[in-house]
């Protein structure tokens, strides 16, 4: 424990420093663009992880909230001329409002029924976006979305956008870390682990789940808005099934219920997506195989490899091992 308490902050500081210099090592605009996508997916996966990892509920509706955020900010900036910087928090608020209404209805049930309800609500939002042409321009999408800017600093290229999203990823990672170390987050984990027992201890299961769901959708909305102002074009596809699948794959492959997992999973996803470009549509088959393989052979995701190694290492040195365990503050899901 003693070596650990010193090693962990050092490792985190090293990791953040590496992330900060990464764009300078990338060397070209294409790689910088991939770095932005990595961070965007990391941000969205961290938000989805609140629902899948901490609350233990599977949602198929997450991409819809990303889309709500993206469209909110895109419409406000293109039609009302609102500065994108103001659109960002508004996108989070609108996505959270949708999350509140949909969560209020869908969280009455749990498990597979909840997952199916979120799939339904996601499909409804997709269909509305696709057909309400007056507002969303339908399948044509919204083009010429202005880039985000803070005063003279414009996020119109990959490198500054990377730093913006990196900052948000780090902030969200801190939010998640604070969550699992707080009374609120421990209630999340209690509800995930054993809802009847949690209730008997005074935890309102429904309110707890709703709170986590709304927080996750708010972050998803902000992520969607950044995406819209970075790519400058959005279509209803952002809410599509492939995006739903992508986010779930990222969280599961990386390691649900952890903070590093979704960030790592996003790196693997973006990396493979680009390096397998030659494989064409076969890519999705490969991802499906990866997802299945992870669920079967590595249920804790990629981060659990590190845990396994450390436990093996500890037993060599006759130190107490934490069986199968992710550190408790990470609240590892099974």
């Amino acid at each position, binding site marked *: 424990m003693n070596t650990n308490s010193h090693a962990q902050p050092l490792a985190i500081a090293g990791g953040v420093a590496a992330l900060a210099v990464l764009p300078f090592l990338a060397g070209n605009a294409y790689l910088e663009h991939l770095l932005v996508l990595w961070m965007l997916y990391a941000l969205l996966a961290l938000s989805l992880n609140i629902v899948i990892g901490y609350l233990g509920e599977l949602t198929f509706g997450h991409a819809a909230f990303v889309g709500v955020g993206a469209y909110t900010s895109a419409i406000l900036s293109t039609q009302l001329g609102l500065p994108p910087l103001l659109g960002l928090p508004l996108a989070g608020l609108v996505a959270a409002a949708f999350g509140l209404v949909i969560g209020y209805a869908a969280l009455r049930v749990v498990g597979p029924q909840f997952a199916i309800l979120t799939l339904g609500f996601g499909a409804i939002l997709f269909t509305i976006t696709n057909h309400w042409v007056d507002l969303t321009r339908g399948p044509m999408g919204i083009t010429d979305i202005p880039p985000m800017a803070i005063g003279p600093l414009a996020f119109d290229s990959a490198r500054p956008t990377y730093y913006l999203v990196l900052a948000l990823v780090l902030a969200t990672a*801190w*939010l998640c870390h*604070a*969550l699992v*170390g*707080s*009374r*609120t*987050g*421990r*209630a999340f*984990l*209690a509800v995930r*682990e*054993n809802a*009847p*027992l*949690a*209730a*008997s*201890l*005074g*935890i*309102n*299961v429904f309110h707890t789940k709703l709170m986590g769901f709304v927080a996750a959708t708010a972050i998803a909305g902000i992520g969607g808005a950044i995406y819209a102002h970075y790519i400058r074009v959005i279509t209803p596809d952002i809410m599509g099934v492939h995006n739903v699948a992508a986010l779930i794959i990222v969280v599961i492959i990386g390691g649900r219920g952890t903070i590093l997992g979704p960030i790592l999973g996003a790196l693997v996803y973006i990396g493979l997506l680009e390096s397998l470009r030659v494989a064409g549509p076969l890519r999705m088959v490969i991802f499906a195989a990866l997802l299945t393989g992870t669920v079967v052979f590595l249920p804790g995701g990629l981060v659990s490899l590190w845990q396994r190694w450390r436990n093996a290492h500890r037993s060599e040195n006759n130190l*107490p091992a*934490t*069986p*199968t*365990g992710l550190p*408790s503050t990470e*609240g*590892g*899901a*099974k």
Partner: protein
Amino acid sequence: MNAANAGEILAVSNLTRIFGGLTAVRDVTMTVQAGEVVGLIGPNGAGKTTLFNMLGGSLPPSSGSIRFAGTDCTGAPSHVMGQRGVSRTFQITSLFPSLTALDNVRSAAYRTTRTGWGAAILRSAAYRREEAELRRKALEILAFCDLDHRADTLADAMSYGEQRRLEIAIALAAEPRLLLLDEPAAGMNPEEGQRLVEMIRRIRARDVTVLLVEHHMRVVASVCDRLVVLDHGVKIAEGPPSQVLNDPEVIRVYLGREPVDA
């Protein structure tokens, strides 16, 4: 009978629960005094767990009323009963399996902690104080349940006996006024049963009132001040263990049948 007694913590009157055509609990009236250890016994299917579920709020009664600490709690949901100070354990081992023992107990302290997510994000002084206090208290409760050496072990990696003790640690972490124990000695050997008896005595010394469902007569007789006997959902006897366990009717419905059940 319903006159408010100063020491009365739980008053159940005419409580009935019907499942379809089956009356699981019929017209049960009983009280528990603060500081008492009361045993609820009866043959399998007598309605003990149904009564427990109603007291814990996980099952609404069909009729009758429940008063806890002077407040009417009839039909209050589980988390409200929990907030008011009724903690329970379950017949089948029920804990937070993939959390460590320490986190099991910390999660259970929801009722007695205040600072939430926001304070944790800002690392406020109140948050840091409460977390330090919570850790100290959780370790104290683990030590109380003889589990302090297992604080960093995952709950589902523990032995059965340890898990049963961890369940009690979880219930105690909520600092309940009334603790409902559903068959705490189930599956325990005599030595573990004796350890449980000691533990229940020490729980009472913490000013927690205990109501327990139990089949182990040795445990019941040595720890309870008073017994309530149910048969087919009806209360058939009540009184000190020495008297109740010698009641011919109780022997007939329950003890007499035990060799047949076993």
